[in-house]
């Protein structure tokens, strides 16, 4: 989140799209209720009438996969009805930037499309630059080549009538939503957009989020209390896991993981840490090299020296897409020797479950670390399979649960909250830290003894978390924060700071690129300093503004800054746009910011040393027009890969960058209904954590699918009947829940029904049921993130467990 949970109470209008906070974040939902108590409006946009919709002031139905049409329509509504925050847009976004002549958009395609490589030539999208390399600008926003005018032109095609024909939303409902949400463009109104997997799990998932960001920038909602672009994270520490670089394409703190062409640290830095010629742009990533060097020092310690580029050579270099689906595909082809699944259940959680389960049987060995047996760890004795036919050696490591170990969990709002172990783990269950520590030590010994490919990459790793039975998690946390490797003197503006070797680095601004500092994750620098473990703080007091900052409760990254981009909440003189919700204000007498930790300590723009608020972009301003998205600078609606409708916005049916395998085409006669998946409050993800707890099983004991009354009637299905749902990938059986909360969509004159289902079930645990992901596809991935399109597919349904 750019903001955080408690901040939601400050919002005047909350748009929940592609998410279901009442069901999936029931406790945090109280902050949304707090906003509503104060007169705030909750809008729920969802294919079904969920428990969130039941609490919302406004509900609008949307056909799965049409979010860009919906959001694009809001963008157009705001632009056409003059509801944008003008000062914010012209000063804090790239609205005024001129785009070079070669950029264009015609009939659904951006320029220039290389049909051989099947990609766009993104160099055609650059800004028009002047002699010094700076982007040309038109502060009046009237130049037809300005981002603002290009944006307006692009979304002029998203008029309300067209949008509603695409999304299936009732026109009156849509206009109610538009009026309510676009009304937050006023400087004294704050609108926030909440989103989750309904937005991200799509072949245009990243562009969905871009559309959210564009709308929020136009309305001046980023950086203000009650505003923001707010992802509701789905696992309790998924925020932490992405922060620490567990995604294949990032290193800790979201630095890119190097590819084979990044042959040296210097080449890597030149590629990823841009220089900016804009004097008023802080361009924070220009400091990236300091964080990279500090990371390498954390990993290879004394072995990492300036002479060897700090052991940059030891970092693995990617030569492809190593995301989840390619791994499963490789496994399914028998080209993977072994797999380690820590708290991950590919047999249920990933798309095309049948392929994943088959594929597990081709491994030589599998290691799982879980609290219970999962469908993955017992794949070899799943229903319909003879264990004698499977040669995989399976090791099940019992893992400690979150209450049985000490450490931090980072929530959606970036707050890292430290927790203690309440009880000892049962039997031989161990913490993940213990498991990884043992892996490391054993591997190191093997490499030392037997050698192998580049053994030094492992044997020279600095790994010192104590000599006790359980590795000391505090030492891990301190290393993540970082410390000085030698006595160091730093000149910080007018003061000279002195640090001793081994002292904790107090803030990431002091990390160095000469090897004098190490830090395991620069955005967490400042979390564990000489003042102690700031993540363990529990001071409930709020900041005097009463805006829910609670600066002394735990610690959030970066630098305990609660609202990102908060310098966009003030005007160029540093006065808050909304004096009633002053998250930040510039005191011109003391020359200091007051309020939240300012996002970039530079003074406001009017000051001679002032800087723009979007410090992580090299331009210093927010991007309405994005240079680095593979499928286009502006989000554009395309239909999901499996769709019942033709694209009404252009002649191009699907996102040109998704690779739809040649032999696949979906027969609408065979699969006439829209399928989608979601979660319920009572179960957790793939169900391993909840389907063996009797009190939860009592609430939701069986796999079910939800459908409309009209679909049920047409198939002779009654509530509680057994039904079978089928797609190209597979077929499952479930109970039918017939309800008016799902209704068919009117799509281009046709009635298209919808079938929805939770994906929590599997063949392990005490409550068993068929897995929804047997139906979903692994063929269509988002070109930017490789995320599968779980939320919109085509299926058929029959009564009585018969194959459709």
């Amino acid at each position, binding site marked *: 989140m750019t903001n955080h949970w408690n901040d939601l109470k400050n919002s005047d209008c909350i748009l929940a799209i592609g998410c279901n906070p009442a069901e999936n974040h029931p406790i945090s939902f109280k902050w949304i209720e707090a906003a509503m108590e104060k007169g705030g409006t909750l809008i729920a946009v969802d294919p079904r009438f969920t428990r969130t919709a*039941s609490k919302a002031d406004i509900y609008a139905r949307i056909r799965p996969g049409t979010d860009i049409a919906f959001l694009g329509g809001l963008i157009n509504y705001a632009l056409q009805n003059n509801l944008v925050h003008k000062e914010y847009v012209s000063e804090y976004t790239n609205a005024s930037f001129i785009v070079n002549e070669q950029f264009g958009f015609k009939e659904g395609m951006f320029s220039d499309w290389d049909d051989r490589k099947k990609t766009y030539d993104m160099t055609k999208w650059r800004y028009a630059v002047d002699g010094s390399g700076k982007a040309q600008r038109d502060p009046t926003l009237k130049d037809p080549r300005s981002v603002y005018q290009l944006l307006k032109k692009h979304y002029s095609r998203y008029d309300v009538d067209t949008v509603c024909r695409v999304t299936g939303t009732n026109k009156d409902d849509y206009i109610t939503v538009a009026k309510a949400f676009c009304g937050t463009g006023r400087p004294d109104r704050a609108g926030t957009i909440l989103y989750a997997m309904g937005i991200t799990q799509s072949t245009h998932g990243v562009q969905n989020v871009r559309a959210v960001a564009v709308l929020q920038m136009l309305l001046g909602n980023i950086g203000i209390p009650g505003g923001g672009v707010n992802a509701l994270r789905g696992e309790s520490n998924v925020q932490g896991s992405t922060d620490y670089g567990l995604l294949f394409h990032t290193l800790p703190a979201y630095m890119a993981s190097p590819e084979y062409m990044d042959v040296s640290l210097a080449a890597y830095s030149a590629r990823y840490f841009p220089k900016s010629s804009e004097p008023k742009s802080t361009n924070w990533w220009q400091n990236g090299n300091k964080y990279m060097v500090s990371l390498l020092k954390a990993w290879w310690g004394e072995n990492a020296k300036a002479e060897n580029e700090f052991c940059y050579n030891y970092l693995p270099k990617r030569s492809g897409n190593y995301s989840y689906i390619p791994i499963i595909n490789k496994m399914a082809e028998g080209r993977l020797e072994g797999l380690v699944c820590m708290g991950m259940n590919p047999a249920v959680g990933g798309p095309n479950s049948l392929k994943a389960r088959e594929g597990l049987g081709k491994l030589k060995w599998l290691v799982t670390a879980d609290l219970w047996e999962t469908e993955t760890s017992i794949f070899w004795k799943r229903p319909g399979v003879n264990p004698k036919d499977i040669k995989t050696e399976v090791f099940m490591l019992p893992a400690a649960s979150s209450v049985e170990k000490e450490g931090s969990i980072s929530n959606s709002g970036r707050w890292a909250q430290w927790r203690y172990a309440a009880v000892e783990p049962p039997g031989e269950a161990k913490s993940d830290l213990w498991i990884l520590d043992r892996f490391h030590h054993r591997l190191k010994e093997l490499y030392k003894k037997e050698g192998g490919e580049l053994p030094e990459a492992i044997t020279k790793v600095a790994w010192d978390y104590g000599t006790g039975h359980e590795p000391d998690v505090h030492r891990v946390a301190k290393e993540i924060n970082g410390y000085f490797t030698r006595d160091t003197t730093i000149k910080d503006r007018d003061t000279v700071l002195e640090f001793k070797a081994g002292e904790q680095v107090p803030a990431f601004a002091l990390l160095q690129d000469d090897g004098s500092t190490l830090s395991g994750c620069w955005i967490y620098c400042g979390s564990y300093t000489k003042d102690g473990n700031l993540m363990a703080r529990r001071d409930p007091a709020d900041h005097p503004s009463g805006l829910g900052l609670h600066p002394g409760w735990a610690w959030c990254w970066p630098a305990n800054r609660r609202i990102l981009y908060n310098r966009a909440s003030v005007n160029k003189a540093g006065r808050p746009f909304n004096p009633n919700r002053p998250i930040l204000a510039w005191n011109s007498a003391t020359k200091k910011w007051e309020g939240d930790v300012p996002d970039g300590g530079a003074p406001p723009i009017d000051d001679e040393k002032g800087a723009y608020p979007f410090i992580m972009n090299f331009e210093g301003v927010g991007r309405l027009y994005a240079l680095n998205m593979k499928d286009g600078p502006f989000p554009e609606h395309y239909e999901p890969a499996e769709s019942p409708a033709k694209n009404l916005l252009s002649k191009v049916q699907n996102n040109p960058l998704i690779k739809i395998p040649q032999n696949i085409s979906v027969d609408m006669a065979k699969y006439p209904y829209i399928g989608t998946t979601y979660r319920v409050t009572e179960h957790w993800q793939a169900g391993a954590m909840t389907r063996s707890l009797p*009190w939860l*099983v009592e609430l939701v004991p069986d796999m079910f699918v939800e459908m409309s009354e009209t679909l049920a009637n047409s198939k002779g299905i009654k509530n509680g009947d057994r039904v079978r749902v089928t797609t190209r990938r597979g077929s499952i059986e479930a109970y039918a829940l017939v309800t008016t*909360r799902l209704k068919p969509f009117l799509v281009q004159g046709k009635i298209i029904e919808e079938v929805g289902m939770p994906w929590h079930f599997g063949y392990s645990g005490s409550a068993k049921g068929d897995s929804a992901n047997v139906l979903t596809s692994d063929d269509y991935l988002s070109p930017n993130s490789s995320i599968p399109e779980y939320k919109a597919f085509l299926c058929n349904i029959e009564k009585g467990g018969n194959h459709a």
Partner: protein
Amino acid sequence: MTEKKDYSNQRTFLIDLTRCTGCRGCQVACKQWNQLEAEKTTFFEGEGYQNPPAMSEHTFTKIKFRDYQRHGYNEFAFYKEMCMHCNDPACASVCPVGAFLKTPEGPVIYKPERCIGCRFCMIACPFGVPKYQWSKTFPFVVKCTGCYSRVKEGLIPACAKACPSAISYGSRSDMIREAKSRLQARPDKYFNRVYGMEEAGGTSVLYLSELPFLELGFRKVTARPLPSYTWAALRLVPAVFLTMGGSLAFISWLTHRKERLRREQEERNVREHGKEGQ
């Protein structure tokens, strides 16, 4: 029991259904605190995701779902079914062995050691709360205890503690004041009534709702305290017992006295006549 008691300090729940998301945290917290068994369920029973089918010896509280359309708009509503901890509980009034007790703190508790399993309370309760232990050889009636074991120690009930926002807990006067202020501040948001203010003479569980209570499925319950229906007759029992019994006993004594005096006279006659005959 006709004198007006002051219930203003009794511990009371205020359940604002406009905040309830049907998450069932309260249901699970209750099971955990009371160590109740999970029931064997299949699919769902009733509307929405409702489970288990009914309150029972294993289920002291349950969230009921309503999934319907109202004037063409969807309504998906949830409400917490539980013991109402009435001010003047019918169960306590009818129990022949005094197994129910309205505690001074508010919860109506139940002493299983006194229960004879007659199930009179089940008939008397207008909310259908006490449930019978059909599964046991020596069955008793069981119900929500109002978490008296917690309340006695200054803690709040498990369901109230688990609930993120809908359940408030405090003195009855505070909860009534809060309910009224919400109705006044947002009349567009609420159905203009507090359920439990007057039902059965007033209960320790008060509800606010957006939808009409009867439409949701709440029971229509008289405002008269249930015991007051039988109190008219019952309160005369001691007096009747004493006066009728006493009078009859006196008449019996009088009648038997006459007979006794006559017998005593006869015995004296026999003794005197016996002595002279020699």
